[in-house]
């Protein structure tokens, strides 16, 4: 995916190795963004179908739950023969699939919680179903969607590193390298980087969600 060869950890100390940490953290962040975005892009149309066709929702829930029950390492392994053994595509696609169980459910439940009079008002104003979905139902479902996004993103950040077992997975590579070459500092650095990245994403999405849903603060203090 990246042309330049990734930097290697030199020696057993931290100093001089910040470029390695930075490189893999940036890569990890990129994978997370791609995976969660892919998940969201898939989840919105699925949720649309689920809110319009009563039968579709339980089927979708069952399907996404089955995917969710597949262990991460196993899902990487299952996707590898199709997407390749030497790149990180299986990991990104697996992560995107995992986010579906959270995102589809949260979008659908969020939309179902939109009060009936609001839907009626939109209909009365002449909104077509698609436009009503995009302009009325989705925005009102945002608090639930944001909660789902936070959970999905934090899980994704942590899970990508499982790729270490098969020698992949951004910061996971620092785990496999640090383990094989017995460099404790590299392991600790990767550990802190994963946790810091997860927290950072969590805070950013939380803040963005608050900015995007000012009405939740007026109505109640729960937000």
């Amino acid at each position, binding site marked *: 995916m990246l042309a330049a060869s990734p930097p290697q950890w030199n020696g057993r100390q931290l100093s001089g190795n910040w470029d390695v940490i930075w490189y893999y953290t940036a890569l990890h962040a990129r994978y997370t963004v791609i995976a969660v975005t892919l998940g969201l892009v898939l989840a919105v149309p699925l949720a649309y179908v689920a809110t319009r066709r009563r039968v579709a929702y339980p089927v979708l*829930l069952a399907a996404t*739950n089955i995917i*969710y*029950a*597949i*262990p*991460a*390492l*196993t*899902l990487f*392994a*299952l996707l*590898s*023969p*199709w997407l390749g*053994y030497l790149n990180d595509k299986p990991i990104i696609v697996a992560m995107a699939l*995992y986010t579906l169980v*959270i995102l589809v*459910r*949260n979008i659908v*439940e*969020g939309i179902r919680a939109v009060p009936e009079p609001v839907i009626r008002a939109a209909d009365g104003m002449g909104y077509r179903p698609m436009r009503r979905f995009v302009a009325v139902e989705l925005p009102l479902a945002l608090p*639930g969607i944001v*909660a*789902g996004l936070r*959970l999905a993103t*934090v*899980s994704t*950040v*942590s*899970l990508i*590193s*499982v790729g*270490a*077992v*098969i*020698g992949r997975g951004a*910061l*996971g590579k620092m*785990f*496999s390298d*640090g*383990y094989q070459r*017995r460099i*404790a500092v590299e*392991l*600790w650095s*990767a*550990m802190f980087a*994963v*946790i810091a990245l*997860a*927290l950072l994403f*969590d805070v950013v999405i939380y803040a963005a969600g608050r900015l995007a849903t000012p009405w939740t603060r007026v109505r109640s203090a729960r937000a």
Partner: protein
Amino acid sequence: MSTILDGIQWLTDPDNWGGRNGIGRAVLQHVWYSLVATLLAVIIALPIGLLIGHTGRGRFVAVNVSGLWRAIPTIGVVTLVFRWQPLSIWPVLIALVLLAIPPIVLNTVAGIDSIPADVRDAATGMGLTGRQALFQVEIPNALPLILAGVRSAANQVIATVSVAGFVGLGTLGVFIFTASRTARGDIMAGASIAIILLVLLVEGMFALLQRALVSPGVRARTPRRLRRAATVPTIPQLSEMSEPS
């Protein structure tokens, strides 16, 4: 599709099952480590969850700590602990126990929280002491959710114990680890199918356990939504959800 068929062929070939590096031994290791880790996690997490749920104190801390907890990468814990305890199963067990604690604690707390206020009032009204109320009213009523928590913890453990293969300690993870280096799609698929089958087996066992342990009255009353809480999150229950690993 052919990869999956190749995997099934690899998995069902009796030649691959025997010996020190066979599937049979790997499955036993997989199940044994998972069992030990899950039991240890229950021993640690259940009292904590009951204490928080019963007293109502520390709930805020528990929910937030669990959120942060989710961010801890298992593979990191394994590799780090392995550094000072090489060639022992403890690093893997410690990582797995750490992983399995939050869903059990959160579901136990949620289980006690979900008991209707009048039920708890009735317990107090009947003159039950705090301890009696906990063991005779709260635990039986919270049991569906507690079991759901243990189930999701067990599933996570079964899925994650594969990392033992990474540090050379067996389990079905070994096959995935070596197959990824040699690009053997059939072994990868076969081992994956075996792990998924184990997960399904555990799911089934917990369904039976639920049937056997939960009082029929409680079973009838618990809404389906709550019974499935740990694996299928609704928005208010997001924090109780575990992640695949």
